[in-house]
Protein backbone atom coordinates (compact mmCIF):
# COMPACT_ATOMS: atom_id res chain seq x y z
CA UNK A 1 0.00 0.00 0.00
CA UNK A 2 2.81 2.33 0.87
CA UNK A 3 4.92 1.40 -2.08
CA UNK A 4 2.67 1.86 -5.02
CA UNK A 5 3.02 0.87 -8.58
CA UNK A 6 -0.60 1.07 -9.65
CA UNK A 7 -1.14 3.46 -12.51
CA UNK A 8 2.57 3.59 -13.22
CA UNK A 9 2.54 2.43 -16.86
CA UNK A 10 5.37 2.67 -19.29
CA UNK A 11 4.48 3.89 -22.75
CA UNK A 12 7.87 3.84 -24.35
CA UNK A 13 10.96 1.65 -24.32
CA UNK A 14 12.97 4.54 -22.98
CA UNK A 15 10.74 4.72 -19.96
CA UNK A 16 10.94 0.99 -19.48
CA UNK A 17 14.71 1.21 -19.53
CA UNK A 18 15.22 3.85 -16.91
CA UNK A 19 17.24 3.27 -13.79
CA UNK A 20 14.35 3.77 -11.38
CA UNK A 21 11.21 2.65 -13.15
CA UNK A 22 9.04 2.91 -10.06
CA UNK A 23 8.03 6.48 -9.25
CA UNK A 24 8.49 5.98 -5.54
CA UNK A 25 12.09 4.87 -6.07
CA UNK A 26 12.83 7.79 -8.31
CA UNK A 27 11.56 10.36 -5.87
CA UNK A 28 13.41 8.68 -3.03
CA UNK A 29 16.58 8.88 -5.09
CA UNK A 30 16.10 12.57 -5.84
CA UNK A 31 15.47 13.22 -2.18
CA UNK A 32 18.65 11.38 -1.30
CA UNK A 33 20.63 13.51 -3.72
CA UNK A 34 19.14 16.69 -2.28
CA UNK A 35 20.09 15.63 1.25
CA UNK A 36 23.56 14.50 0.18
CA UNK A 37 24.39 17.69 -1.66
CA UNK A 38 22.31 20.23 0.18
CA UNK A 39 22.05 19.16 3.80
CA UNK A 40 24.99 16.98 4.85
CA UNK A 41 27.78 19.45 4.03
CA UNK A 42 26.31 21.88 6.50
CA UNK A 43 25.92 19.50 9.40
CA UNK A 44 28.91 17.21 8.92
CA UNK A 45 31.67 17.17 11.52
CA UNK A 46 35.21 15.80 11.57
CA UNK A 47 34.40 12.54 13.30
CA UNK A 48 31.60 11.56 10.93
CA UNK A 49 33.57 12.59 7.91
CA UNK A 50 36.71 10.69 8.86
CA UNK A 51 35.20 7.65 10.48
CA UNK A 52 32.25 7.05 8.23
CA UNK A 53 31.30 9.21 5.28
CA UNK A 54 34.55 9.84 3.44
CA UNK A 55 35.82 6.25 3.60
CA UNK A 56 32.33 5.05 2.65
CA UNK A 57 32.27 7.21 -0.47
CA UNK A 58 35.79 6.28 -1.47
CA UNK A 59 35.29 2.57 -0.96
CA UNK A 60 31.98 2.79 -2.79
CA UNK A 61 33.89 3.85 -5.90
CA UNK A 62 36.38 1.02 -5.46
CA UNK A 63 33.59 -1.46 -4.89
CA UNK A 64 31.75 -0.33 -8.01
CA UNK A 65 34.98 -0.84 -9.90
CA UNK A 66 35.62 -4.31 -8.54
CA UNK A 67 31.97 -5.22 -8.95
CA UNK A 68 32.22 -4.44 -12.65
CA UNK A 69 35.09 -6.86 -12.93
CA UNK A 70 33.80 -9.66 -10.75
CA UNK A 71 30.04 -9.15 -10.61
CA UNK A 72 29.35 -8.10 -14.19
CA UNK A 73 32.17 -9.70 -16.09
CA UNK A 74 32.96 -12.67 -13.87
CA UNK A 75 36.73 -12.13 -13.72
CA UNK A 76 38.02 -12.68 -10.21
CA UNK A 77 40.69 -10.24 -9.11
CA UNK A 78 42.66 -10.02 -5.88
CA UNK A 79 44.77 -7.12 -7.03
CA UNK A 80 42.54 -4.26 -5.90
CA UNK A 81 45.02 -3.01 -3.30
CA UNK A 82 47.80 -2.88 -5.83
CA UNK A 83 45.66 -0.99 -8.32
CA UNK A 84 44.59 1.51 -5.69
CA UNK A 85 48.28 2.03 -5.05
CA UNK A 86 48.79 2.77 -8.73
CA UNK A 87 46.11 5.45 -8.55
CA UNK A 88 47.61 6.93 -5.39
CA UNK A 89 51.19 7.00 -6.63
CA UNK A 90 50.18 8.26 -10.05
CA UNK A 91 48.30 11.14 -8.50
CA UNK A 92 51.25 11.82 -6.20
CA UNK A 93 53.75 12.00 -9.04
CA UNK A 94 51.41 14.16 -11.12
CA UNK A 95 50.66 16.52 -8.26
CA UNK A 96 54.30 16.99 -7.40
CA UNK A 97 55.39 17.33 -11.02
CA UNK A 98 52.64 19.67 -12.19
CA UNK A 99 51.53 21.65 -9.15
CA UNK A 100 49.55 24.21 -11.14
CA UNK A 101 47.13 21.70 -12.61
CA UNK A 102 43.86 21.03 -10.79
CA UNK A 103 43.78 18.00 -8.54
CA UNK A 104 40.62 16.85 -10.28
CA UNK A 105 42.51 16.49 -13.55
CA UNK A 106 45.27 14.65 -11.76
CA UNK A 107 42.88 12.20 -10.21
CA UNK A 108 41.24 11.53 -13.54
CA UNK A 109 44.58 10.97 -15.23
CA UNK A 110 45.63 8.73 -12.36
CA UNK A 111 42.49 6.72 -13.05
CA UNK A 112 43.49 6.49 -16.69
CA UNK A 113 46.98 5.29 -15.82
CA UNK A 114 45.51 2.65 -13.53
CA UNK A 115 43.22 1.58 -16.36
CA UNK A 116 46.25 0.98 -18.57
CA UNK A 117 48.00 -1.00 -15.83
CA UNK A 118 44.79 -2.93 -15.29
CA UNK A 119 44.66 -3.89 -18.95
CA UNK A 120 48.26 -5.08 -18.82
CA UNK A 121 47.65 -7.30 -15.80
CA UNK A 122 44.34 -8.37 -17.27
CA UNK A 123 45.91 -9.90 -20.36
CA UNK A 124 46.33 -13.32 -18.72
CA UNK A 125 42.54 -13.48 -18.35
CA UNK A 126 42.39 -14.49 -21.97
CA UNK A 127 44.01 -17.81 -21.19
CA UNK A 128 43.31 -18.23 -17.51
CA UNK A 129 39.93 -18.43 -15.80
CA UNK A 130 38.32 -18.62 -12.41
CA UNK A 131 40.58 -18.74 -9.43
CA UNK A 132 43.62 -19.37 -11.54
CA UNK A 133 43.01 -15.79 -12.62
CA UNK A 134 42.68 -14.74 -8.99
CA UNK A 135 46.17 -16.06 -8.38
CA UNK A 136 47.48 -14.26 -11.42
CA UNK A 137 46.06 -11.03 -10.03
CA UNK A 138 47.92 -11.77 -6.80
CA UNK A 139 51.06 -11.49 -8.90
CA UNK A 140 49.91 -7.97 -9.75
CA UNK A 141 49.19 -7.20 -6.11
CA UNK A 142 52.53 -8.31 -4.72
CA UNK A 143 54.56 -7.01 -7.60
CA UNK A 144 53.02 -3.53 -7.48
CA UNK A 145 53.50 -3.18 -3.73
CA UNK A 146 57.12 -4.29 -4.10
CA UNK A 147 57.58 -1.85 -6.99
CA UNK A 148 56.31 1.17 -5.08
CA UNK A 149 58.46 0.18 -2.14
CA UNK A 150 61.70 -0.50 -3.99
CA UNK A 151 61.85 2.08 -6.74
CA UNK A 152 62.53 5.42 -5.05
CA UNK A 153 61.42 7.48 -8.03
CA UNK A 154 57.84 6.68 -7.09
CA UNK A 155 58.09 8.31 -3.70
CA UNK A 156 60.33 11.12 -4.89
CA UNK A 157 63.35 9.65 -3.10
CA UNK A 158 62.00 10.48 0.35
CA UNK A 159 63.83 8.77 3.17
CA UNK A 160 60.77 7.27 4.78
CA UNK A 161 59.35 5.70 1.63
CA UNK A 162 56.07 7.41 2.43
CA UNK A 163 54.17 9.72 0.14
CA UNK A 164 52.33 12.81 1.39
CA UNK A 165 49.64 14.69 -0.43
CA UNK A 166 50.52 18.32 -1.03
CA UNK A 167 47.90 20.92 -0.24
CA UNK A 168 45.52 21.45 -3.08
CA UNK A 169 42.27 23.28 -3.51
CA UNK A 170 39.29 23.25 -5.80
CA UNK A 171 37.44 26.49 -6.50
CA UNK A 172 39.39 28.14 -3.68
CA UNK A 173 38.51 25.56 -1.06
CA UNK A 174 41.18 23.26 0.39
CA UNK A 175 40.51 19.62 -0.33
CA UNK A 176 43.80 18.13 0.81
CA UNK A 177 46.47 18.90 3.32
CA UNK A 178 46.35 19.48 7.07
CA UNK A 179 43.92 22.39 6.98
CA UNK A 180 41.15 20.75 5.05
CA UNK A 181 37.65 20.95 6.39
CA UNK A 182 35.35 18.00 6.78
CA UNK A 183 32.70 19.23 4.39
CA UNK A 184 35.23 19.85 1.62
CA UNK A 185 36.62 16.33 1.92
CA UNK A 186 33.10 15.03 1.82
CA UNK A 187 32.01 17.11 -1.16
CA UNK A 188 34.85 16.24 -3.46
CA UNK A 189 34.37 12.54 -2.78
CA UNK A 190 30.62 12.88 -3.25
CA UNK A 191 31.04 14.51 -6.64
CA UNK A 192 33.37 11.74 -7.78
CA UNK A 193 31.03 9.07 -6.46
CA UNK A 194 27.99 10.44 -8.24
CA UNK A 195 29.92 10.80 -11.49
CA UNK A 196 31.42 7.30 -11.23
CA UNK A 197 28.13 5.69 -10.34
CA UNK A 198 26.45 7.40 -13.27
CA UNK A 199 29.14 6.25 -15.70
CA UNK A 200 29.03 2.74 -14.32
CA UNK A 201 25.27 2.59 -14.58
CA UNK A 202 25.36 3.72 -18.21
CA UNK A 203 28.03 1.28 -19.19
CA UNK A 204 26.33 -1.66 -17.52
CA UNK A 205 22.88 -0.99 -18.97
CA UNK A 206 23.90 -1.07 -22.62
CA UNK A 207 25.84 -3.20 -25.05
CA UNK A 208 29.04 -3.16 -23.01
CA UNK A 209 27.27 -4.42 -19.90
CA UNK A 210 25.60 -7.18 -21.87
CA UNK A 211 28.87 -8.30 -23.34
CA UNK A 212 30.37 -8.46 -19.87
CA UNK A 213 27.47 -10.43 -18.47
CA UNK A 214 27.47 -12.79 -21.43
CA UNK A 215 31.14 -13.54 -20.82
CA UNK A 216 30.40 -14.02 -17.14
CA UNK A 217 27.52 -16.41 -17.67
CA UNK A 218 28.91 -18.56 -20.45
CA UNK A 219 31.98 -17.28 -22.18
CA UNK A 220 32.07 -19.91 -24.92
CA UNK A 221 28.49 -19.26 -25.96
CA UNK A 222 29.15 -15.54 -25.76
CA UNK A 223 32.01 -15.86 -28.20
CA UNK A 224 29.95 -17.95 -30.58
CA UNK A 225 27.16 -15.39 -30.70
CA UNK A 226 29.58 -12.64 -31.52
CA UNK A 227 31.19 -11.20 -28.39
CA UNK A 228 34.91 -10.59 -28.76
CA UNK A 229 36.21 -12.03 -25.50
CA UNK A 230 39.51 -10.18 -25.68
CA UNK A 231 37.85 -6.80 -25.98
CA UNK A 232 35.16 -7.55 -23.44
CA UNK A 233 37.53 -8.78 -20.73
CA UNK A 234 40.09 -6.07 -21.29
CA UNK A 235 37.48 -3.31 -21.25
CA UNK A 236 36.20 -4.75 -17.98
CA UNK A 237 39.69 -4.59 -16.55
CA UNK A 238 40.16 -1.09 -17.92
CA UNK A 239 36.92 0.38 -16.62
CA UNK A 240 37.23 -1.42 -13.31
CA UNK A 241 40.81 -0.25 -12.82
CA UNK A 242 39.84 3.29 -13.77
CA UNK A 243 37.39 3.44 -10.88
CA UNK A 244 39.73 1.63 -8.50
CA UNK A 245 42.53 4.01 -9.43
CA UNK A 246 40.34 7.01 -8.70
CA UNK A 247 39.41 5.50 -5.37
CA UNK A 248 43.07 4.93 -4.56
CA UNK A 249 43.95 8.49 -5.51
CA UNK A 250 41.15 9.90 -3.37
CA UNK A 251 42.04 7.59 -0.50
CA UNK A 252 45.56 8.91 -0.51
CA UNK A 253 45.01 12.59 -1.23
CA UNK A 254 41.79 13.40 0.56
CA UNK A 255 41.45 10.78 3.27
CA UNK A 256 44.83 9.55 4.44
CA UNK A 257 47.00 12.51 3.48
CA UNK A 258 50.06 10.30 3.72
CA UNK A 259 50.56 6.66 2.90
CA UNK A 260 53.05 3.85 3.09
CA UNK A 261 52.35 1.39 0.34
CA UNK A 262 52.53 -1.89 2.25
CA UNK A 263 50.18 -0.70 4.96
CA UNK A 264 47.68 1.28 2.94
CA UNK A 265 47.45 -0.85 -0.18
CA UNK A 266 48.42 -4.37 0.86
CA UNK A 267 46.48 -7.54 0.22
CA UNK A 268 44.20 -6.86 3.15
CA UNK A 269 42.76 -3.99 1.07
CA UNK A 270 42.08 -6.36 -1.79
CA UNK A 271 40.14 -8.62 0.53
CA UNK A 272 38.30 -5.71 2.11
CA UNK A 273 36.93 -4.50 -1.21
CA UNK A 274 36.19 -8.08 -2.25
CA UNK A 275 34.11 -8.53 0.89
CA UNK A 276 32.26 -5.31 0.10
CA UNK A 277 31.41 -6.69 -3.31
CA UNK A 278 30.22 -10.04 -1.98
CA UNK A 279 28.23 -8.69 0.92
CA UNK A 280 26.76 -5.90 -1.16
CA UNK A 281 25.82 -8.15 -4.02
CA UNK A 282 27.56 -9.19 -7.20
CA UNK A 283 26.50 -7.33 -10.28
CA UNK A 284 24.67 -4.51 -8.59
CA UNK A 285 25.57 -0.85 -8.30
CA UNK A 286 23.27 -0.38 -5.37
CA UNK A 287 24.90 -3.43 -3.83
CA UNK A 288 28.30 -1.80 -4.15
CA UNK A 289 27.08 1.07 -2.01
CA UNK A 290 25.46 -1.26 0.48
CA UNK A 291 28.55 -3.41 0.82
CA UNK A 292 30.84 -0.43 1.25
CA UNK A 293 28.57 1.04 3.90
CA UNK A 294 28.43 -2.26 5.72
CA UNK A 295 32.17 -2.87 5.87
CA UNK A 296 32.89 0.73 6.85
CA UNK A 297 30.28 0.86 9.57
CA UNK A 298 30.98 -2.56 11.07
CA UNK A 299 34.36 -1.79 12.69
CA UNK A 300 33.04 1.56 13.91
CA UNK A 301 30.07 -0.15 15.48
CA UNK A 302 32.10 -2.96 16.98
CA UNK A 303 34.61 -0.54 18.40
CA UNK A 304 31.91 1.53 20.03
CA UNK A 305 30.18 -1.48 21.50
CA UNK A 306 33.14 -3.58 22.53
CA UNK A 307 35.80 -1.09 23.46
CA UNK A 308 33.58 1.82 24.40
CA UNK A 309 30.69 -0.08 25.88
CA UNK A 310 32.23 -3.24 27.27
CA UNK A 311 35.75 -1.96 27.86
CA UNK A 312 37.50 -4.70 25.94
CA UNK A 313 41.11 -4.07 24.95
CA UNK A 314 41.43 -2.96 21.34
CA UNK A 315 43.32 -6.03 20.18
CA UNK A 316 40.62 -8.35 21.45
CA UNK A 317 38.07 -6.18 19.70
CA UNK A 318 40.09 -6.40 16.49
CA UNK A 319 40.20 -10.19 16.69
CA UNK A 320 36.50 -10.30 17.36
CA UNK A 321 35.99 -8.20 14.24
CA UNK A 322 37.79 -10.84 12.18
CA UNK A 323 35.55 -13.49 13.65
CA UNK A 324 32.42 -11.53 12.85
CA UNK A 325 33.48 -10.57 9.33
CA UNK A 326 34.45 -14.14 8.55
CA UNK A 327 31.21 -15.50 9.94
CA UNK A 328 29.17 -12.90 8.07
CA UNK A 329 30.86 -13.67 4.78
CA UNK A 330 30.05 -17.34 5.18
CA UNK A 331 26.52 -16.57 6.33
CA UNK A 332 25.91 -14.30 3.35
CA UNK A 333 27.26 -16.81 0.91
CA UNK A 334 25.04 -19.51 2.33
CA UNK A 335 21.89 -17.51 2.80
CA UNK A 336 22.02 -14.91 0.11
CA UNK A 337 24.87 -15.21 -2.35
CA UNK A 338 23.45 -12.21 -4.11
CA UNK A 339 24.10 -10.06 -1.08
CA UNK A 340 22.39 -7.10 0.47
CA UNK A 341 21.17 -5.96 -2.94
CA UNK A 342 19.08 -9.09 -3.25
CA UNK A 343 17.81 -8.77 0.30
CA UNK A 344 16.75 -5.25 -0.58
CA UNK A 345 15.00 -6.39 -3.74
CA UNK A 346 13.12 -9.06 -1.82
CA UNK A 347 12.17 -6.51 0.83
CA UNK A 348 10.81 -4.20 -1.85
CA UNK A 349 8.80 -7.04 -3.34
CA UNK A 350 7.21 -7.60 0.01
CA UNK A 351 6.66 -3.86 0.47
CA UNK A 352 4.76 -3.68 -2.78
CA UNK A 353 2.18 -5.99 -1.36
CA UNK A 354 2.24 -4.90 2.27
CA UNK A 355 0.05 -5.19 4.30
CA UNK A 356 -1.21 -8.08 2.17
CA UNK A 357 0.80 -11.28 2.47
CA UNK A 358 0.56 -12.21 -1.22
Amino acid at each position, binding site marked *: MLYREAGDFKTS*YAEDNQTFPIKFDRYAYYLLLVVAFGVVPFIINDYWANAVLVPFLIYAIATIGLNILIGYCGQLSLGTGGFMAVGAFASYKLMTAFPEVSIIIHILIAGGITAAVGVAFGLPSLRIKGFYLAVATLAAQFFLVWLFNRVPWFYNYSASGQISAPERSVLGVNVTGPNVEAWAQYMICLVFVVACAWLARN*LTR*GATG*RKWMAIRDMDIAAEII*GVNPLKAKLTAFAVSSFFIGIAGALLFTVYLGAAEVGEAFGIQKSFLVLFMVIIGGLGSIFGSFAGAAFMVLLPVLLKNVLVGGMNWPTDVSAHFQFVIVGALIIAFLILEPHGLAQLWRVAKEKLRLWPFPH
Partner: protein
Amino acid sequence: MNTMTENTTVGYVTDDGRQIGGTIMEMKNITLRFGGVVAIEDISFDIHEGEIRAIIGPNGAGKSSMLNVISGFYHPQEGEVWFNGAKRPPMKPFEVAGQGIARTFQNIALFKGMTTLDNIMTGRLTRMKTGMLSQAIWWGKAAREEEEHRRKVEEIIDFLEIQAIRKTSVGRLPYGLQKRVELGRALAAEPKLLLLDEPMAGMNVEEKEDMSRFILDVNDEFGTTIALIEHDMGVVMDISDRVVVMDYGKKIGDGTPAEVLANQEVIDAYLGVSHD
Protein backbone atom coordinates in the same frame (compact mmCIF):
# COMPACT_ATOMS: atom_id res chain seq x y z
CA MET B 1 10.29 -36.21 -56.48
CA ASN B 2 12.66 -33.55 -57.69
CA THR B 3 15.65 -34.31 -59.83
CA MET B 4 18.38 -33.50 -57.30
CA THR B 5 21.87 -34.80 -57.53
CA GLU B 6 24.53 -34.30 -54.91
CA ASN B 7 26.31 -31.02 -54.62
CA THR B 8 25.00 -28.90 -57.47
CA THR B 9 25.70 -25.22 -57.09
CA VAL B 10 22.64 -23.83 -58.85
CA GLY B 11 19.30 -23.40 -57.22
CA TYR B 12 16.41 -25.81 -57.49
CA VAL B 13 12.71 -25.96 -56.86
CA THR B 14 11.31 -28.11 -54.08
CA ASP B 15 8.34 -30.43 -54.23
CA ASP B 16 6.02 -27.78 -52.85
CA GLY B 17 7.21 -25.18 -55.31
CA ARG B 18 9.63 -23.15 -53.19
CA GLN B 19 12.53 -21.65 -55.08
CA ILE B 20 15.84 -22.47 -53.46
CA GLY B 21 18.87 -20.35 -54.28
CA GLY B 22 22.50 -21.20 -55.02
CA THR B 23 25.07 -22.54 -52.58
CA ILE B 24 25.91 -20.30 -49.67
CA MET B 25 27.99 -22.71 -47.64
CA GLU B 26 30.25 -25.52 -48.73
CA MET B 27 32.19 -27.92 -46.56
CA LYS B 28 35.04 -29.39 -48.61
CA ASN B 29 36.81 -32.50 -47.38
CA ILE B 30 36.62 -31.62 -43.73
CA THR B 31 38.62 -33.79 -41.37
CA LEU B 32 38.58 -33.10 -37.64
CA ARG B 33 40.66 -34.94 -35.07
CA PHE B 34 40.94 -34.75 -31.28
CA GLY B 35 44.21 -36.35 -30.44
CA GLY B 36 43.78 -39.91 -31.67
CA VAL B 37 40.03 -39.72 -32.19
CA VAL B 38 38.74 -38.87 -35.67
CA ALA B 39 35.48 -37.01 -35.17
CA ILE B 40 34.91 -36.10 -38.81
CA GLU B 41 36.52 -37.87 -41.74
CA ASP B 42 36.68 -36.28 -45.17
CA ILE B 43 33.16 -34.94 -45.32
CA SER B 44 31.89 -32.63 -48.06
CA PHE B 45 28.42 -31.21 -48.51
CA ASP B 46 26.79 -27.92 -49.33
CA ILE B 47 23.94 -25.78 -48.11
CA HIS B 48 21.81 -23.77 -50.51
CA GLU B 49 20.38 -20.38 -49.79
CA GLY B 50 16.89 -20.52 -48.38
CA GLU B 51 16.75 -24.26 -47.84
CA ILE B 52 16.26 -26.27 -44.69
CA ARG B 53 19.14 -28.78 -44.50
CA ALA B 54 18.99 -31.50 -41.91
CA ILE B 55 22.07 -33.27 -40.55
CA ILE B 56 21.16 -36.62 -39.10
CA GLY B 57 22.90 -39.71 -37.85
CA PRO B 58 23.25 -41.94 -34.80
CA ASN B 59 24.70 -40.55 -31.58
CA GLY B 60 28.41 -39.90 -31.70
CA ALA B 61 28.40 -39.51 -35.46
CA GLY B 62 30.06 -36.12 -35.27
CA LYS B 63 27.06 -33.92 -36.05
CA SER B 64 27.58 -31.37 -33.26
CA SER B 65 31.26 -31.31 -34.10
CA MET B 66 30.32 -30.42 -37.66
CA LEU B 67 28.18 -27.57 -36.42
CA ASN B 68 31.07 -26.44 -34.26
CA VAL B 69 33.30 -26.41 -37.31
CA ILE B 70 30.77 -24.27 -39.12
CA SER B 71 30.63 -21.86 -36.12
CA GLY B 72 34.38 -21.61 -36.06
CA PHE B 73 34.68 -23.13 -32.60
CA TYR B 74 36.61 -26.17 -33.84
CA HIS B 75 39.21 -25.84 -36.57
CA PRO B 76 39.45 -28.83 -38.90
CA GLN B 77 42.90 -30.21 -39.49
CA GLU B 78 42.11 -30.70 -43.17
CA GLY B 79 39.57 -29.27 -45.56
CA GLU B 80 38.05 -25.92 -46.38
CA VAL B 81 34.94 -24.04 -45.43
CA TRP B 82 33.45 -21.84 -48.14
CA PHE B 83 30.88 -19.21 -47.22
CA ASN B 84 29.15 -16.90 -49.67
CA GLY B 85 31.35 -18.07 -52.49
CA ALA B 86 34.65 -17.34 -50.76
CA LYS B 87 37.01 -19.61 -48.88
CA ARG B 88 36.82 -18.82 -45.19
CA PRO B 89 40.19 -18.24 -43.54
CA PRO B 90 40.64 -19.59 -39.98
CA MET B 91 38.45 -17.31 -37.89
CA LYS B 92 37.53 -16.83 -34.28
CA PRO B 93 33.95 -17.76 -33.43
CA PHE B 94 32.92 -14.17 -32.83
CA GLU B 95 34.16 -13.21 -36.27
CA VAL B 96 32.09 -16.01 -37.75
CA ALA B 97 29.06 -14.62 -35.94
CA GLY B 98 29.80 -11.26 -37.48
CA GLN B 99 29.57 -12.86 -40.90
CA GLY B 100 25.96 -13.77 -40.32
CA ILE B 101 25.96 -17.26 -38.85
CA ALA B 102 23.92 -17.78 -35.68
CA ARG B 103 23.14 -20.93 -33.76
CA THR B 104 21.43 -22.67 -30.91
CA PHE B 105 23.04 -25.32 -28.73
CA GLN B 106 22.34 -28.92 -27.84
CA ASN B 107 22.54 -28.23 -24.10
CA ILE B 108 20.96 -24.85 -23.78
CA ALA B 109 23.56 -22.10 -23.58
CA LEU B 110 21.50 -19.20 -22.37
CA PHE B 111 22.93 -16.59 -20.06
CA LYS B 112 21.41 -17.68 -16.80
CA GLY B 113 22.07 -14.41 -15.02
CA MET B 114 19.85 -12.42 -17.42
CA THR B 115 16.20 -12.11 -18.33
CA THR B 116 14.60 -13.34 -21.55
CA LEU B 117 14.67 -9.85 -22.98
CA ASP B 118 18.33 -9.33 -22.14
CA ASN B 119 19.28 -12.71 -23.55
CA ILE B 120 17.62 -11.97 -26.86
CA MET B 121 19.18 -8.49 -26.83
CA THR B 122 22.59 -10.15 -26.68
CA GLY B 123 21.76 -11.56 -30.08
CA ARG B 124 21.88 -7.98 -31.38
CA LEU B 125 25.40 -7.39 -30.09
CA THR B 126 27.02 -7.90 -33.48
CA ARG B 127 24.90 -5.03 -34.74
CA MET B 128 25.40 -2.58 -31.91
CA LYS B 129 27.82 -0.01 -33.10
CA THR B 130 27.96 2.87 -30.64
CA GLY B 131 31.34 3.31 -29.08
CA MET B 132 32.00 2.94 -25.37
CA LEU B 133 32.37 6.64 -24.77
CA SER B 134 28.89 7.35 -26.14
CA GLN B 135 27.55 4.53 -24.06
CA ALA B 136 29.12 5.97 -20.94
CA ILE B 137 27.23 9.18 -21.50
CA TRP B 138 24.11 7.39 -22.64
CA TRP B 139 21.86 10.25 -23.64
CA GLY B 140 21.69 10.59 -27.40
CA LYS B 141 23.24 8.00 -29.61
CA ALA B 142 23.46 5.11 -27.19
CA ALA B 143 19.91 5.52 -25.94
CA ARG B 144 18.56 5.73 -29.47
CA GLU B 145 20.40 2.62 -30.63
CA GLU B 146 19.23 0.75 -27.56
CA GLU B 147 15.65 1.65 -28.40
CA GLU B 148 16.02 0.62 -32.03
CA HIS B 149 17.35 -2.77 -31.08
CA ARG B 150 14.70 -3.15 -28.42
CA ARG B 151 12.07 -2.62 -31.07
CA LYS B 152 13.54 -5.35 -33.22
CA VAL B 153 13.81 -7.73 -30.32
CA GLU B 154 10.20 -7.11 -29.38
CA GLU B 155 9.24 -8.17 -32.91
CA ILE B 156 10.99 -11.45 -32.34
CA ILE B 157 9.36 -11.81 -28.95
CA ASP B 158 5.99 -11.33 -30.62
CA PHE B 159 6.90 -13.81 -33.33
CA LEU B 160 7.84 -16.46 -30.78
CA GLU B 161 4.89 -15.64 -28.54
CA ILE B 162 6.95 -15.19 -25.39
CA GLN B 163 5.77 -11.75 -24.33
CA ALA B 164 4.68 -12.90 -20.91
CA ILE B 165 8.15 -14.07 -19.90
CA ARG B 166 10.21 -11.23 -21.25
CA LYS B 167 11.27 -9.99 -17.83
CA THR B 168 11.66 -13.43 -16.26
CA SER B 169 15.13 -14.66 -15.44
CA VAL B 170 15.79 -17.48 -17.92
CA GLY B 171 17.04 -19.79 -15.19
CA ARG B 172 13.46 -20.02 -13.98
CA LEU B 173 11.91 -20.99 -17.29
CA PRO B 174 10.86 -24.51 -18.19
CA TYR B 175 12.99 -26.34 -20.72
CA GLY B 176 10.70 -25.83 -23.71
CA LEU B 177 10.55 -22.09 -23.22
CA GLN B 178 14.30 -21.88 -22.72
CA LYS B 179 14.75 -23.51 -26.10
CA ARG B 180 12.44 -20.95 -27.60
CA VAL B 181 14.34 -18.06 -26.01
CA GLU B 182 17.55 -19.49 -27.38
CA LEU B 183 15.99 -19.56 -30.83
CA GLY B 184 14.99 -15.93 -30.29
CA ARG B 185 18.56 -15.01 -29.43
CA ALA B 186 19.79 -16.61 -32.63
CA LEU B 187 17.08 -14.91 -34.68
CA ALA B 188 17.89 -11.52 -33.18
CA ALA B 189 21.15 -11.57 -35.08
CA GLU B 190 19.18 -11.62 -38.39
CA PRO B 191 21.49 -14.35 -39.62
CA LYS B 192 22.02 -15.53 -43.17
CA LEU B 193 22.57 -19.05 -41.89
CA LEU B 194 20.89 -20.38 -38.80
CA LEU B 195 22.30 -23.53 -37.17
CA LEU B 196 20.00 -25.45 -34.86
CA ASP B 197 21.49 -28.19 -32.71
CA GLU B 198 18.70 -30.61 -31.81
CA PRO B 199 16.03 -27.94 -31.40
CA MET B 200 13.39 -30.53 -30.55
CA ALA B 201 15.37 -32.51 -28.00
CA GLY B 202 13.38 -33.35 -24.92
CA MET B 203 10.10 -32.00 -26.24
CA ASN B 204 6.67 -33.62 -26.38
CA VAL B 205 4.55 -33.81 -29.54
CA GLU B 206 2.86 -30.45 -29.04
CA GLU B 207 6.09 -28.64 -28.32
CA LYS B 208 7.66 -30.23 -31.37
CA GLU B 209 4.81 -29.04 -33.53
CA ASP B 210 5.23 -25.51 -32.17
CA MET B 211 8.95 -25.52 -32.76
CA SER B 212 8.51 -26.94 -36.27
CA ARG B 213 6.06 -24.19 -37.05
CA PHE B 214 8.53 -21.57 -35.84
CA ILE B 215 11.33 -23.03 -37.89
CA LEU B 216 9.20 -23.14 -41.03
CA ASP B 217 7.98 -19.59 -40.39
CA VAL B 218 11.52 -18.34 -39.97
CA ASN B 219 12.47 -19.89 -43.27
CA ASP B 220 9.31 -18.63 -44.92
CA GLU B 221 9.03 -15.09 -43.60
CA PHE B 222 12.67 -14.14 -43.24
CA GLY B 223 14.12 -16.38 -45.95
CA THR B 224 16.76 -17.62 -43.49
CA THR B 225 18.80 -20.65 -44.52
CA ILE B 226 18.60 -23.28 -41.83
CA ALA B 227 20.81 -26.23 -41.03
CA LEU B 228 19.55 -28.42 -38.23
CA ILE B 229 20.62 -31.52 -36.38
CA GLU B 230 17.64 -33.63 -35.53
CA HIS B 231 16.85 -37.14 -34.35
CA ASP B 232 13.10 -37.21 -34.90
CA MET B 233 12.67 -38.73 -38.36
CA GLY B 234 9.13 -37.49 -38.64
CA VAL B 235 10.30 -33.90 -38.21
CA VAL B 236 13.15 -34.44 -40.66
CA MET B 237 10.84 -35.83 -43.30
CA ASP B 238 8.32 -33.06 -42.76
CA ILE B 239 10.34 -29.91 -42.69
CA SER B 240 13.67 -30.44 -44.36
CA ASP B 241 14.43 -29.97 -48.05
CA ARG B 242 17.66 -31.97 -48.12
CA VAL B 243 19.45 -34.19 -45.67
CA VAL B 244 23.06 -35.14 -44.88
CA VAL B 245 23.57 -38.40 -43.02
CA MET B 246 26.64 -38.98 -40.88
CA ASP B 247 27.85 -42.09 -39.13
CA TYR B 248 31.16 -42.60 -37.25
CA GLY B 249 32.41 -39.31 -38.70
CA LYS B 250 31.76 -40.22 -42.32
CA LYS B 251 29.05 -39.08 -44.70
CA ILE B 252 26.80 -41.97 -45.70
CA GLY B 253 23.94 -40.17 -47.38
CA ASP B 254 23.09 -36.86 -49.05
CA GLY B 255 19.87 -35.95 -50.80
CA THR B 256 16.17 -35.40 -50.22
CA PRO B 257 14.65 -37.03 -47.14
CA ALA B 258 12.97 -39.71 -49.22
CA GLU B 259 16.17 -40.58 -51.12
CA VAL B 260 18.22 -40.73 -47.98
CA LEU B 261 15.86 -42.88 -45.99
CA ALA B 262 15.69 -45.42 -48.78
CA ASN B 263 19.48 -45.75 -48.66
CA GLN B 264 20.50 -49.14 -47.26
CA GLU B 265 23.64 -47.83 -45.59
CA VAL B 266 21.57 -45.29 -43.68
CA ILE B 267 19.12 -47.94 -42.56
CA ASP B 268 22.00 -50.14 -41.40
CA ALA B 269 23.55 -47.31 -39.44
CA TYR B 270 20.36 -46.71 -37.51
CA LEU B 271 19.59 -50.34 -36.94
CA GLY B 272 23.07 -50.83 -35.57
CA VAL B 273 24.48 -53.23 -38.11
CA SER B 274 28.12 -53.74 -37.13
CA HIS B 275 30.88 -51.96 -38.95
CA ASP B 276 34.38 -53.15 -39.61
